């Protein structure tokens, strides 16, 4: 395609998308906006997981907790008079630090030991939300001070915030993925034993991937606090971890677009299960039914579609299905 036409088309697409994002609150009802914002927030967190689990091939089960760190720390700092953007950035940086800390064993641990360590770390964070009552108010929950900007109502502001962050993250990570750093991360995944002789420090890149993904989890958590307006520890426990995993693997673990596709999928499934039709048929499905549905989805995706929904068209086109493998761990 002629480059001028191509860039024109891309520019037009970006403009149309921007206009859609900008005018959406005026035309869509409040509940739909709420769901769309939620999707954007999960997509931000999901891109971080794509970098860590997809590109770098490190399994990490602490991100529900790190998401909570972003939400709680931002709410705490903003509650003590910090401006919201500064509070969010500080909290996300703290989350990145914690992510690097839990990633420290990653340099030495084989896959499933890392899974255990990160699962324990996520639970430790959950325990901290429950028990550090002076900071988090424990199980009673903590109200979030809403962000204010003249002329815009808070829900629309949160939507713009989430979409701007998502767009910035997508552009930055796309560039990162094509850069030397991105190729090094993928080298750590694919040919880790050889990285040393290529002058790539596998440990440094693993820590970088952990820090990036924890930062994005924290940042997404900060925005999530504004959406949900009231934080309780159980929001950041194991059910959220399963949602993140389903999101990641339904969308496709290696692509950034997978994070967005997965986010749409998990929110859509949740709404479907909560809808009047389903909940009047099977009342019990609303609570643990969601976890059941997500657990089943995870099993089915790992078993039959290890590259996610995004790979479905390619799989259908190719006559002979590829052998089912995820990215190698060891």
């Amino acid at each position, binding site marked *: 395609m002629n480059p001028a036409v191509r860039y024109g088309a891309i520019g037009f697409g970006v403009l149309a998308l921007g206009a859609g994002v900008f005018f959406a609150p005026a035309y869509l009802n409040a509940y739909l906006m709420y769901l769309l914002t939620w999707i954007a927030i999960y997509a931000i967190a999901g891109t971080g997981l794509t970098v860590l689990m997809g590109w770098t*091939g490190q*399994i990490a*089960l602490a991100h529900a907790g790190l998401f909570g760190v972003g939400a709680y720390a931002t709410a705490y700092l903003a509650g003590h008079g910090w401006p919201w953007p500064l509070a969010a950035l500080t909290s996300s940086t703290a989350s990145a630090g914690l992510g690097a800390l839990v990633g*420290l*064993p990653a340099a*030495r*641990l*084989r*896959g*499933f*030991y890392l*899974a*255990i*360590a990160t*699962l*324990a*770390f996520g*639970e*430790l964070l959950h*325990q901290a939300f429950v*028990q550090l009552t002076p900071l988090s108010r424990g199980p009673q929950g903590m109200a979030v001070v809403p962000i204010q900007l003249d002329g815009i109502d808070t829900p629309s502001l949160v939507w713009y915030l989430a979409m701007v962050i998502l767009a910035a993250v997508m552009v930055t990570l796309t560039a990162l993925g094509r850069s030397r750093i991105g190729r090094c991360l993928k080298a750590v995944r694919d040919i880790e*034993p050889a990285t040393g002789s290529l002058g790539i420090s596998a440990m440094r890149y693993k820590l970088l991937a952990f820090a990036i993904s924890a930062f994005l989890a924290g940042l997404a958590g900060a925005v999530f606090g504004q959406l949900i307006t009231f934080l309780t520890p159980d929001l950041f426990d*194991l*059910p959220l971890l*399963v949602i993140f*995993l389903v999101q990641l*693997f339904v969308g496709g673990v290696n692509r950034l677009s997978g994070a967005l596709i997965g986010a749409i999928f998990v929110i859509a499934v949740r709404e479907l299960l909560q809808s009047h039709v389903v909940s009047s048929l099977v009342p*019990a499905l609303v*609570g*643990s*039914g*969601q*976890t*059941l549905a*997500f*657990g*089943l*989805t*995870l*099993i089915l995706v*790992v*078993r039959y579609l*290890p590259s996610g929904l995004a790979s479905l068209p390619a799989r259908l086109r190719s006559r002979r299905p590829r052998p*089912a*493998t*995820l*990215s*190698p*761990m*060891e």
Partner: protein
Amino acid sequence: MAQQVISGLAAGSSYALLALGLVVTMKTTSVPNFAMGAMGLLPVYVIKSLWSQLHLPYGLAILIGIAAAFGTGWVVERLTIRHLIGLSHFTTVLMTIGIWFVLNSSVGLLWGYEPQPLPSLVSGSFNLGQVVVTNAQVMTLAVGLVIAGWLIVFFRTTWGVRMRAVAEDPLVPRLLGVRVATVSGLSWAIASSIAAIAVLLSAQASVLNPQSGDDLIINGFVAATAGGFSSIGGAVVGGLALGVIENLAGAYLSGAAASTVALLGIMVILLVRPTGLLGPGTGREV
């Protein structure tokens, strides 16, 4: 102090049992089974229903429940794990997490989230110096040690050797006429039964709720990690030590300390000695 050690040993015995279940699936199918606690949880709820709703004798209910656990392990292996033989831990970890949540939320849907009491098989207590020891604690500890001893013997029998061979390399045993599928199914069935006993013993000491399995799985991982996921003795020592430390922390520091000791412990163990305290220093495959 001695009182805390006794209750710690009893609690640690269920951690050790769950860890033994983890060691069995790891040794034979090389799968780190995050669903182990949930696989033990379901049969214990079956036991509870058989006893409280169908009014079966408790001992009979337990036997049927353990048979159900055997079946659960077999079915789970047949439906999911068998298709993943030879794939990386990345895949199997995710699969077992999925199984964990399916089993746990099914239990929640079927039986609800109210804590349920379970009776103990034995009652009464005796004094050992100034320390009160309940017979239930003695039984818990004894069951743990007996199963550990049985496993050590079992891994030396023909079936045990087959299991270890399959873990080493699924292809060569097949060439030698070992039915890999049967061996792998059997190991999951055995592991699941051991997990059910672990959940049963720990629920008898407190209450049974759908989280019972989750509380055990982290502690079981700590104990199994202490033994490097391959040593039966290491898993038992690790489990008992964790139970004692947890109880001492609860008594002398705070209740919060007790619940974080395992979580901190596993981080420390993995940072200091990633292959487990007693485990072999295995090399990495290139």
